[in-house]
């Protein structure tokens, strides 16, 4: 039963990491931007949730998700659109600037102190099924990640805008040459990224019960590692990378002797280095990386 519990925890953490990674990958795939601001999209959505304490929880959740979308789309419209076609270095610096701006905004409005919340505290309780004990938040995370991934898969495979998004992610210039509107597809990519950040923010708060303006930093670092392992620009790769990273984290936590456990992350990232040494393009690299108009 312990094994099954650990597998469920691994899937839960992997699902969460996949959401973080997909948010990065979808923007990188279409816009070529390594969006360090994504972590602050997560924090922004989480702060909106906390600001709506007292409001019916479903309304607060919807507003937090909408806030994630809004901040991501506003960033695209207000900043990145004007830098389209700039070299990757410029876009990276711009992403850092946006990240710092959102962090400063959050600090200005909410302060830099850690904020505690009771949101999701009910989910910390275990669900007992015979001898199997599963924490509710793990189940909720799996369901949320599953719904988000399935929804995204439907969007990308079954809707015209989703197919356009995939085409643009594979070859942005060629997508434009078949009439795909660059502004529209870029906005959709950021909106999807914002929605994923919103969902990630809700789960982050529900799991930790605390929040600071820099709470999104750790998730975004994890997301980048997952994206690179999966193959930069590849959406299935981001999901695979997220699950691999999450599953391995939990496996190491469980399997390592107690005296070595503090070095878990060091061991984890050594494994990452080994993977990238033998497969520098990642596990499921994107078809091609073409220049952008």
């Amino acid at each position: 039963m312990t094994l099954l519990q650990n597998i469920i925890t691994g899937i839960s953490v992997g699902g969460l990491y996949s959401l973080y990674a997909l948010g990065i990958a979808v923007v990188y795939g279409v816009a070529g931007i390594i969006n360090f601001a994504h972590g602050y999209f997560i924090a922004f959505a989480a702060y909106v949730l906390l600001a709506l304490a007292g409001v019916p929880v479903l309304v607060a959740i919807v507003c937090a998700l909408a806030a994630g979308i809004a901040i991501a789309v506003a960033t695209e419209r207000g900043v990145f659109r004007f830098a389209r076609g700039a070299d990757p270095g410029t876009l990276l610096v711009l992403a850092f600037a946006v990240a710092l701006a959102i962090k400063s905004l959050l600090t200005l409005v909410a302060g830099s102190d850690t904020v505690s919340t009771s949101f999701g505290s009910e989910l910390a309780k275990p669900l007992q099924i015979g001898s199997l004990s599963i924490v509710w938040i793990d189940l909720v995370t799996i369901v949320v990640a599953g719904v988000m991934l399935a929804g995204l898969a439907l969007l990308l495979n079954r809707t015209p805008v989703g197919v356009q998004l995939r085409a643009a992610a594979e070859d942005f210039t060629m997508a434009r040459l078949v009439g795909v509107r660059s502004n529209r597809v870029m906005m959709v990519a950021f909106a999807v990224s914002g929605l994923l950040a919103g969902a990630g923010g809700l789960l982050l708060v529900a799991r930790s019960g605390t929040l600071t303006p820099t709470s999104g930093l750790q998730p975004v670092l994890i997301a980048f590692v997952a994206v690179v392992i999966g193959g930069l620009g590849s959406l299935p790769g981001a999901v695979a990378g997220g699950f691999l990273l999450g599953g391995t984290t939990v496996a190491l936590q469980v399997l390592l002797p107690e005296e070595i456990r503090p070095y878990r992350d060091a061991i984890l990232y050594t494994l990452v280095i080994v993977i990238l040494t033998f497969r520098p393009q990642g596990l499921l690299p994107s078809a091609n990386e073409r220049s952008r108009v």
Partner: protein
Amino acid sequence: MSRLELSDLHVRYGAVAALRGVDLVVESGTILALIGPNGAGKSTTLLAMAGACEGKVSGRIVFNGNDISLHSPEKRTRAGIALVPEGRRIFTKLSVEQNLTVARAGRADRAEVEVEEIYERFPVLGDFASRQAGLLSGGQQQQLAIGRALMMRPTVLLLDEPSLGLSPKIVEEVFQTVVTLRDEGMTIVLVEQNAKRAAELADVTYVMRHGKLEGKGATAVTEELAQAFFSARGDERTSS
């Protein structure tokens, strides 16, 4: 009616001048072939027409009387200019059918162009409609690239090296398609490594070299133009 006119077109990639004052008129319902050695500026000319040139472009591009020099690639596509690029650049992760339907975005009137029309012209695409496009053979991918362009119902089709990497039999099929499209009224600009064959197909042929048009003629002077091309290529070899 679809007249495309380039006036004093220049393209620079950094310090390198790829096009140096190209003046060209593509008349409606004709095949215009551009031949010349590698690096002559043929593909750059097509990319500049389609709005997808990454270099610094100056000069005028007029399409049906409208100056489209500053228009985005997608706007030019909706105006009726479609590019089949060198290397095909199909979306390898999408299915064959998705490669076609994604090009509906390029229709100005937003009318549904049925994929069946494309399948009638290229039956093999219909047979492999749900197959991942990257798994098609080179010839099938070329048909898909042309089919994708036709989904946009263009009036001008820009074809860059459509025979590259294909077997002689498939090349002839592709060229036959080009002639059929011209006979249906489409205007075609063809960049082709097979200079002699291109000049045979074309109504007008230009030789390009060092970013300039060096010669022009109707099919009657094909042999002379091909000679010019081959001698130019020989020069390239000598200089390298």
